[in-house]
C-alpha cells in the first residue's frame, strides 16, 4: 500500500540518538559550536535515560590530596587492565572541570560552602573520597539540562524510536525513526550522527535500569559495520528490591551502605559470604557480592521469594542517618516496601542481585569516533573507557566529560562536510520491512512475550555467572526467538496512535542482536575478569587474556569475534 511508504524528512548538521545526559550535553555543545541539532529520544521526558535513574554520584578528584593521576590509576585498576587508557586520561583530567561546568546550563551544584562541593564517603576502589552525591539523585541536573535543551533552539523529537541508521558509500548519513505518538516515519539526514542510546539493562529480567534501555544502539552500530568492544563485560549490583513487580530489581544499596556490621544470609539462615570472599566477607566488592547473591539463589538456597536476606541491625546510627540523607529517594522507597522497622534497620529484609551497568559497547577513539565515518558514540553505548569493570561514580563523570566533547567535535566535522542525502529507496525498503513485520496482525507472538523470553534467558545465562554449555544454549535460544520474531511476531491492535506494541516490535530484534554479540564475546573469553565471571574458567589469566574482545559484522553478515591487543 503506498500509504505505508510515506515519511517526512528532517535535516540537521548533527543528529543525536538518545535522551539521557550524554545526549543532552552533546546536543548543547554541538549547538554552541554553531551546528543545527536534532535530538531523537524514545521517552517523553528530557533528560531521562539511565541518567535520571542514577543516584547522582559523580566521582572526580575534587580534594586537595587527590589528583587526576591517582584517579586514573584507580579506574585502570578496577578495569582489570582492559580500559583504553587514552579515554581514561581524558576523563581523569576533565572530570572536575566538567562537573563544575554543568552550572553553565542553568543549574547550581550542591555546595558545602561557597567553594567546596559536598563530598560523601569513600567509595570502594577509590584512594580518596571522591563521590559527589548531590542529594537530589540526579533530578537536579537532569531537569536543568532538559530546560537548557528547550532554551537553545535544538529540535527535539520525543517518543520516537530510531529503527535503523542510514548509510551511503560507507558513511552514516542519517537515521530512520518511527514515532510512537503518531505511528509515522521520519527520515533524518545528518552530517554527523551521535549514538547516545545508553545501556542494555532491559535485556535482563532483573535490572536497575528503566525498561527503555533495550540496547538499540549496539545493534544499530553492528548493523552498519562498526566495531564493538568488551561486549562480555556486564556490571551487576548486589542489593536491590525483590518486590513489588515495578520495583523488582531496582537499585537499593551495596553492603557498605549499611556499615561494617552488615550480614548476608541465605534462605537457610546461613551466612555465606565466607564461601566467596573469606577475607573481606560482606565488605567485598559489589561484583563479588552480586555474584554470591546470584549463586545462593540459583543453587536453591534463596528464600521462598527467591531472595537473600540482608541484616543491617548491627550498625552505627550515623551511618543510618547518612543513608537517609544522601539517598532520600531510595530511602523513601525502602521505607515503603519494607515498613517502619526495616526502615530503621531494626529488622532484616529480603533483596536480590540485578544487572546495573554495561562496560562494553561501540568502540570509540579519543574523539568519540566509531570505526564508521559519520558515526560517533558517547556514554554507556560506547565501549573502552571502563574496561572489565566500572569504578563507582565514573559513569556520570564519563558523560559529563565526553558529552560536551563529542558535541563539539561532531559539530566541527559537520562544518567541514557536505550533507550527503540518503537514498529514498533504502528508506522505503526499510519502512516496508518494518510494516511487513507487524502490520498484518497474523502471527501469535506479541513483542512483550518475546522480550520476556529474551530477558529470562539473558539473566540466567549471561548473568553474574557464565558457563560454556549454558551460553551455547543461549545462542540457540536466541536464534530460535529470532526465527519466531520474524515469522510470528505481530501487533494485535492496528491503531497508529501511541501503539506501544509497534515500538516494542522494533526493540525486539535489537535485543536479540545485542544479546548475541554479548554471548559470542563471553564465549570467547575463557577466563574470569571484572564483570565477566565463568564457572568453567574461574581464574584470571593475564598470560592469554590481557586483551580486549572485539566483535564486528563479517562478510556473511554474522558476528566475527576476535581477541585484540590492548590500546596503550
Amino acid at each position: 500500500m503506498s500509504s505505508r511508504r510515506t515519511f517526512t524528512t528532517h535535516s540537521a548538521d548533527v543528529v543525536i540518538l538518545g535522551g539521557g545526559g550524554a545526549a543532552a550535553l552533546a546536543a548543547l555543545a554541538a549547538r554552541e559550536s554553531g551546528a543545527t541539532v536534532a535530538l531523537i529520544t524514545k521517552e517523553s521526558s528530557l533528560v531521562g535515560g539511565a541518567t535520571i535513574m542514577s543516584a547522582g554520584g559523580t566521582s572526580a578528584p575534587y580534594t586537595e590530596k587527590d589528583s587526576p593521576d591517582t584517579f586514573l590509576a584507580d579506574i585502570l585498576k578496577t578495569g582489570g587492565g582492559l580500559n583504553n587508557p587514552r579515554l581514561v586520561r581524558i576523563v581523569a583530567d576533565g572530570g572536575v572541570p566538567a562537573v563544575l561546568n554543568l552550572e553553565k546550563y542553568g543549574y547550581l551544584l550542591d555546595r558545602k560552602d561557597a567553594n567546596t562541593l559536598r563530598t560523601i564517603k569513600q567509595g570502594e576502589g577509590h584512594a580518596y573520597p571522591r563521590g559527589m552525591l548531590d542529594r537530589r539523585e540526579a533530578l537536579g541536573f537532569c531537569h536543568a539540562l532538559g530546560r537548557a535543551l528547550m532554551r537553545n533552539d535544538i529540535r527535539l523529537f520525543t517518543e520516537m524510536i530510531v529503527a535503523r541508521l542510514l548509510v551511503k558509500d560507507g558513511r552514516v548519513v542519517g537515521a530512520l525513526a518511527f514515532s510512537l505518538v503518531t505511528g509515522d516515519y521520519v527520515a533524518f539526514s545528518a552530517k554527523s550522527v551521535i549514538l547516545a542510546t545508553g545501556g542494555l539493562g532491559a535485556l535482563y529480567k532483573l535490572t536497575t535500569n528503566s525498561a527503555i534501555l533495550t540496547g538499540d544502539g549496539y545493534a544499530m552500530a553492528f548493523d552498519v559495520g562498526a566495531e564493538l568492544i568488551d561486549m562480555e563485560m556486564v556490571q551487576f549490583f548486589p542489593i536491590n528490591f525483590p518486590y513489588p513487580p515495578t520495583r523488582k530489581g531496582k537499585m537499593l544499596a551495596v553492603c557498605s551502605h549499611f556499615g561494617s556490621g552488615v550480614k548476608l544470609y541465605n534462605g537457610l539462615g546461613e551466612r555465606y559470604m565466607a564461601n566467596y570472599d573469606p577475607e573481606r566477607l560482606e565488605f567485598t566488592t559489589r561484583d563479588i557480592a552480586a555474584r554470591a547473591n546470584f549463586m545462593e539463589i540459583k543453587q536453591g538456597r534463596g528464600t521462598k521469594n527467591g531472595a537473600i536476606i540482608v541484616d543491617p541491625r548491627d550498625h552505627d546510627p550515623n551511618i543510618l542517618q547518612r543513608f537517609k540523607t544522601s539517598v532520600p529517594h531510595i530511602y523513601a522507597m525502602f521505607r515503603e516496601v519494607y515498613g517502619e522497622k526495616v526502615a530503621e534497620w531494626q529488622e532484616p529484609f529480603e533483596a536480590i542481585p540485578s544487572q546495573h551497568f554495561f562496560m562494553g559497547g561501540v568502540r570509540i577513539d579519543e574523539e568519540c569516533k566509531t570505526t564508521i565515518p559519520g558515526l560517533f558514540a558517547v556514554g554507556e553505548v560506547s565501549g573502552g573507557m571502563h574496561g572489565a569493570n566500572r569504578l563507582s561514580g565514573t559513569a556520570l563523570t564519563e558523560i559529563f566529560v565526553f558529552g560536551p566533547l563529542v558535541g563539539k567535535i561532531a559539530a566541527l566535522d559537520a562544518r567541514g562536510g557536505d550533507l550527503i542525502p540518503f537514498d529514498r529507496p533504502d528508506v522505503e525498503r526499510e519502512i516496508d520491512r518494518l510494516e511487513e513485520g507487524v502490520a498484518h496482525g497474523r502471527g501469535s507472538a506479541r513483542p512483550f512475550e518475546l522480550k520476556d523470553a529474551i530477558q529470562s534467558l539473558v539473566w540466567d545465562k549471561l548473568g553474574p555467572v557464565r558457563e560454556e554449555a549454558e551460553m551455547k544454549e543461549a545462542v540457540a535460544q536466541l536464534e530460535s526467538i529470532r526465527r519466531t520474531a520474524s515469522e510470528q511476531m505481530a501487533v494485535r491492535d492496528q491503531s497508529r496512535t501511541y501503539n506501544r506494541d509497534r515500538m516494542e516490535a522494533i526493540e525486539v530484534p535489537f535485543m536479540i542482536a545485542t544479546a548475541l554479540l554479548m554471548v559470542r564475546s563471553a564465549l570467547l573469553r575463557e577466563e574470569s575478569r571484572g564483570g565477566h565471571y565463568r564457572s568453567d574458567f574461574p581464574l584470571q589469566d593475564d598470560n592469554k587474556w590481557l586483551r580486549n574482545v572485539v566483535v564486528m559484522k563479517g562478510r556473511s553478515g554474522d558476528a566475527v569475534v576476535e581477541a585484540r591487543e590492548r590500546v596503550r
Partner: protein
Amino acid sequence: MNVKCDIYRFDPESGAKERYETYLLEAEPLETVLDILIRIYRNSQPSLSFRFACGVVKCGECAVTVNGIPCLACDKKIEPEMKIDPLPQLPVIKDLVIDRRKAFEQIFKILPELARKLDTSRRWQSVTPETADRYVQLTRCFECLMCQSACPVFGMMPEKFAGPLGMLWLAQMSLDPKSQAAVEPYAGPALEMCTRCGACSDVCPCSEKILDLAIETLEKR
C-alpha cells in the same frame, strides 16, 4: 485480592466517543497501579495507551488520576475499585497519555524570558550554603505535571498562568545568579495569580513541600 478498574479510553484516530472500559483482575496488595496497567495491556487490551519509564518514582512519566486523585502509577498501591483517568487540565493524546511536551512548552510561552540565554559572563558565581540548600530542595521535582493538573487557577486560565510548575521553575531560577534577571518580570504577577489554595502541594509526590517552598522563595526574593 479482587480489583475492578474502570479505565478511560479515548482514541482520536478511531473517532469513537470517549468511554470507560471495565477490567476485573486478581492482584497482590503490594502491587502498584502500573503493575495492573501493564497486566491489562499484556493480557487483555493491547490497544491501551499509557506511559511509564523508570518504575521508581523519579521520571514523572506515569502520572495518572486514580479515583479523582492524581498520582504516579508506579507509586500508587492498588485499591479494590479504581477509576483511572488521565491527568486533568492537560491535553490528552490517547487514553491515559497526556501531551507533556505541550505542557512544558506552554510554560516557556507564558514566560518567554526563561528561554533567554543565561548570563554566564562571570565564570564562578558562588551562592551561600543556605541558597544551595534551598535550591537542592526545589530541584527535587519529578516534573510529573500533577501540580499543573490540580491547580484551579491554571485550569481556568492556562494561557495566562504558568501554573505551580512554572512558579517552581521561577523559584529555582531566582536563586541562581545566572538567571535571576530573567525571573524578575514574572515573579510578581505569578504570585498575584496564585491563590495559595495548596491544591498543588496536596498532590505533589515529593517528600518535601517544594511547592510551598517555591512560593516562599519567590515572596522572599
